[in-house]
């Protein structure tokens, strides 16, 4: 019964600044999703009848992103109504989780073809607008020592000794790499130009990259989480309840070394061999393995390390078997922790920059990350790649792909 799951293609929207002055602010989450699905179909020409489902990652599932956005996106797109739709929320890894779920369905023989991916219009449906018990329900919040993600990121930096300077250096590198990749057209295989209903262009490139960022510029930025940590309401003390060996939390993260708030969507076409044959498509990659894990919710964002250990073990691999890594740049310390733990060569890690430079449209990022990884594997002729993300409430998700 077990079958291989292949990636036939990926595409993504450009990432817009996730604020009212961002270029994608005028585009609804449903339309952004539908356009992405349409582009994927147009690029590959698959037959809707061969696609079972659209598994669509999305975090803030309220307002226009509510009401099963995945199904709305299908109905708004040119896909046939026979394609179902399901919205999934694994916070920041939703897009990659969608890929993993689709791969699992294909591997388990439950259908031939899937579209997986996700979207977030953070400028239109702000982060946190879906509420969430873990912050507000005292029974849960106190049980798990809840702190917001920024405090967790600063906690990682403090615990593992990543200074403000190290985080800023990483951020500068991300910006430089993203700017170079954009300039050299390394994203052009995946990014489509988003147009309006009249065919007029809205945005055709990631608009948040600041290649000129330098250490001096970053050094002026105020730590974003110091006030909520040290004074009101005092999250640092809660973090220290879990990590009592620390005297205090060093607040090193700020707007310049954390992921940007963004609008964007990404999609991956996944199917078994038969799906490709039927639709005349050559697989670009095989999904070798998927994994997910739960970790301490207070430090929250360390998941990429244990989930990578887990996926390597599940697949009988070593860290040295991976040629390229994409680790979501939610915060600089998250990537530094991954690099530090596995002693990964920086030349293999986030080589085209990441969310610090280009932004992190929560539900979409996982799928975008996988597309970026695959494009780079092809460009630099590498065999095996791993994508992973840290996740709210303490989780990690990972996917290993190899060229087909």
């Amino acid at each position: 019964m077990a079958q291989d799951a292949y990636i036939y293609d990926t595409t993504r929207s450009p990432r817009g600044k996730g604020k009212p002055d961002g270029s994608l602010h005028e585009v609804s989450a449903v339309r952004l999703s539908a356009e992405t699905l349409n582009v994927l179909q147009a690029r590959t020409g698959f037959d809707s009848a061969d696609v079972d489902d659209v598994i669509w990652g999305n975090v803030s599932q309220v307002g226009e992103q509510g009401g099963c956005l995945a199904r709305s996106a299908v109905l708004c797109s040119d896909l046939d109504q026979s394609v179902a739709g399901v919205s999934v929320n694994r916070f920041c890894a939703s897009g990659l989780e969608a890929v993993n779920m689709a791969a699992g369905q294909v591997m388990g023989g439950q259908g031939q073809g899937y579209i997986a991916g996700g979207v977030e219009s953070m400028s239109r449906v702000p982060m946190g607008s879906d509420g969430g018990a873990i912050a507000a329900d005292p029974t849960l919040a106190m049980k798990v020592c809840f702190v917001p993600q920024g405090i967790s990121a600063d906690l990682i930096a403090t615990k593992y000794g990543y200074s403000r300077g190290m985080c800023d250096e990483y951020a500068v590198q991300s910006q430089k790499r993203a700017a170079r990749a954009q300039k050299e057209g390394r994203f052009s295989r995946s990014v489509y130009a988003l147009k309006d209903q009249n065919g007029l262009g809205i945005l055709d490139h990631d608009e948040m990259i600041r290649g000129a960022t330098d250490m001096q510029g970053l050094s002026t930025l105020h730590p974003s989480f110091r006030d909520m940590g040290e004074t009101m309401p005092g999250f640092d003390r809660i973090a220290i309840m879990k990590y009592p060996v620390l005297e205090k939390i060093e607040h090193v993260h700020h707007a310049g070394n954390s992921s940007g708030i963004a609008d964007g969507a990404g999609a991956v076409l996944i199917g078994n061999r038969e799906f490709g044959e039927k639709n005349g498509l050559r697989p670009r990659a095989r999904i070798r393995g998927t994994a997910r894990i739960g970790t301490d919710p207070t430090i929250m964002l360390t998941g990429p390390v244990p989930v990578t250990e887990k996926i390597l073990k599940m697949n009988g691999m070593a860290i040295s078997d991976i040629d390229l890594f994409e680790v979501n740049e939610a915060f600089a310390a998250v990537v530094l922790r991954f690099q530090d733990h596995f002693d990964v060569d920086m030349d293999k890690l986030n080589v085209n920059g990441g969310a610090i430079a280009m932004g992190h449209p929560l539900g979409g990022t996982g799928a975008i990350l996988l597309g970026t990884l695959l494009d780079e594997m092809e460009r630099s002729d590498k065999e095996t790649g791993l994508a992973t993300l840290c996740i709210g409430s303490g989780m990690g998700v990972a996917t290993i792909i190899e060229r087909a």
Partner: protein
Amino acid sequence: MADFTMTTGDDGVAIITWDCPGKSMNVMSEAGFGALDDCVDAVLEDDAIKGAVITSAKKYFAAGMDLNTLAGWKARGGENPARVIFDGIMQGHNVLRKIELAGMDFKTGKGGKPFAAALPGTALGIGLEISLACHRIFAADNPKAKIGLPEIMVGLFPGGGGTTRMVRKMGVMGASGYLLEGKTLEPAKARAAGMVDEVVPADALPDAARAWVLKAKDADLVKPWDQKGYRMPGGTPYHPAGFMAFAGAVAMVHSKTSGVYPAAQALLAAIYEGALVPFDTALKIEARWFTHVLMNPSSAAMINALFINKGALEKGAARPAHVPDQSVKKIGVLGAGMMGAGIALVAATAGIGVVLIDRTQEAADRGKSCTEHYMDKGIRRKKATPEQKKQVLGLIRATTDFDALRDVDLIVEAVFEDPAIKAEVTKKAEAIIPQDATFATNTSTLPITGLAAASQRRDQFVGMHFFSPVDKMMLVEIIKGRETGAHAVARALDFVRQIGKTPIVVNDARFFYANRCIIPYGGEAHRMVAEGIAPALIENAARHMGMPIGPLQLGDETSVDLAMKIMTATKAAMGNTCPASDGDKVITTLFEAGRLGRKVNAGFYTYDETGRRTGLWPGLADHFAVMEDQPDVTEVQHRLALVQVLEAVHAFEEGVLEDIREGDVGAVLGWGFMPWSGGPFSWLDMLGAEQAVGICEGLAATHGDRFNPPALLKEMAEKGETFYARFTPAAPASA
């Protein structure tokens, strides 16, 4: 006679009067709820009655719930006490809800009968909760009355609908000070805060309420939360503004309490869950959490320590019963340093005359000026008036003249901790004071029997250990020397009662009780530093288990040279029997580096030029390297807690402590020992002697004999006993 009785006037207004027979203050019991329910039914059923005023025949409206009722529910519950407690609480809710709904036909909005609360004085806990169920609250303009819901202070939360009603009235942010901090207000401020509706002169109280009942309109009888379209002020948890308020409140409480107080957590849960459902469901949720808190051993322990046993000690549980009242009119305080000045302050503010003596007039005046500053601060905060300041200062005579002690009832000697100096002033004072005056020496470390050697009348000589700062610390440790008589003990106790503090009485032994327990707390921390345990882990472990400050910070506050002095003195006194400790090296190192603590802005911590702590001194690691692998925080906590607790058990075994209640109350009030635990003995009961012995044996194997379980504890473990079951003196528990 029932707790509530009713009379109806010609105008058709029923007056429901609360008057618990034989009690100075009204408290609510199960029978009380029944009597109130009967009155409410009578009002609602009798067509001739237009409405009702609920008031009190006493000076106070009510002090709160009768804690015996709560304990009774629990005891009666047998296998399932939670069921009995929950049902009991719900029965109370039903009575109050009946008042609130006024018998109105909600379809027509007619037929309701107004209920007004008329509070002649203090209304706390259930007293205010009943009022909150009424349609209008009148309070007499008595500035001494306290109105509020202080339950959280004793390990409970308002469980008679107060939580649900206050949050719906004021929103979570508005109500948080009253619910989470137990803030009480005088009537005028309570009205400004929206807690009561009208403040009227005391003699106009019943008439004002009666008049309102007669003119109340149908709309006045419908609470906002019983109206369509009600919105909670500030928003519910998943309203954008409400979300920030709730998430913020949760984090704030969690961060402030280290998560060790179950009542705070349950209160927040009742607020949060209640905010998401209709009113009656919210009451049920409140009752579930209140039941949960009553079932929690920590709450029972806190009620015992901070309410029942503290109250019993303040009422003279340890006082020799046969000695008549020994209240003092005038005292002499020898030594106008920090302690003497503080003792003069608390005595004068209690209306007691003080002769404050020091070697120079300047020093005596400086001591008196403490009271002046204190009163000035009170005036700035509107807690005192210039007249009161004048009156209080008029009670203190600062002088160098021992002749001024001719008519004092009590001497509190607070000179430098040096036996020779103490002996000198003892002799000098005894030559002048009246024959029946008591001589109390305030010392924290010197044995009383030794100091009494300088006295000509040792039966009148007693130890009195005040804690610093005197005006804030609630405990006074009274120490009986070998020859101290009952009269002196009674005098000391009566004086402590006059100044509104809580006494414990202990026998004379090295460091008495409090210091005997607290000194090893620092000592254990010093050993840990020497072992290479991270100082931050030591400090956090202590704070997270509910100690008010970490042991190293405490070392800085009390000063490193004091620790050095105690260490040297202990070694001198005990000789070879003094257990060796690597921790001594830590103190010696700091001492030699001149890092003497807060007073020199350098110690275990670093300080900025304003004296603010800036962090642990990194240089300590150069002397005592921090280990790569740190121990589990629980082990650190067990060491820091048990090293104190075992001293308490030894003190009890040796008869230094005569009553475990004094051991518990003294620990919580004296040095802030884990208040959630109710004190060392109560904590051991919670843990169970068997488990405690197991932990001690484990620690003794790794860390040394000081953790060997005391014989008494081992015996109790074998027999399956608890301290409170075995040693509780027969004392009535009443609110």
